[in-house]
């Protein structure tokens, strides 16, 4: 029971994923939402590494590198959108993004 197994890593990964999903859905500040997305991507990476170790297969680590690449691109574009929203509305709250609402 004390011995750390793949299940322990999955518990950490699932908890982090749930925290991230809650942050994306509940918070109003767009900066926090973007940080929650990073949490979700990190939990996916933990999952990949845990299964890579479980199966003794390097492919999980390779896939995690591509996930990190996508996370970096996502952060850059998301923060660019945040800057554009701030220029337009003088706020980072997502309630302010109502441009399409007639």
């Amino acid at each position, binding site marked *: 029971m004390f011995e750390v197994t793949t299940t322990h890593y999955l518990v950490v990964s699932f908890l982090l994923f749930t925290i*991230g999903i809650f942050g994306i859905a509940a918070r109003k500040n767009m900066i*926090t939402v973007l940080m929650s997305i990073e949490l979700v991507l990190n939990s996916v990476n933990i999952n990949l*590494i845990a299964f890579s170790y479980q199966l003794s297969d*390097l492919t999980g680590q*390779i896939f995690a590198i591509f996930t990190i690449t996508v996370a970096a691109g996502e952060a850059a574009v998301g923060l*660019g959108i945040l800057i554009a929203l701030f220029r337009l509305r003088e706020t980072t709250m997502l309630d302010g993004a109502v441009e399409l609402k007639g």
Partner: protein
Amino acid sequence: MTFLTAHGSDLLFYLFAALTIAGGIGVVTMRNPMYGAISLLLSFLSVAALFLLRSAEFLGMVQIFVYGGGIMVLFLFVIMLVNLHRLPEIKLFGGQSPLAAVVAVLLLAFFGYFLIKFQFGPALVRPEAFVLADGQSLGNSQAVAWNLYTQNLLPFEIASVFLLIAMVGAVVLGRKQ
């Protein structure tokens, strides 16, 4: 002392797992995004330690460099760039929070069901898989590089084009009109 040497990596796992979850909770609950970003940094570094404990040494360093260095600096710059006035008066969570909590509980129930349903056999039956490069036992970085440049060359090139597109997109979005 013998307990420490026998279970040192397990204890490290519990420490860094707790720090990871604590950092995640900090990101979601902190009112000031700057404190949230520092919590996120704590979470990133703890995840890097978890990678190291699962024989992903190269990925642990990439995690620290890319997340702890690059993405974190990006977040801190943007937080300081946008002027976050009137922070105390703004409500932390939106009106959709109860629904979000329900979704989170459902997700946790699904994951719990998954964990109870599936049992895993012994891990790491072939530890040499993480250090083999071209048939030689060199190290994790060499093994990852060998795999990346031989079997996954096309996805690697596509990733570089993707990063270029993301960079151009971010510049265009952030440009003054």
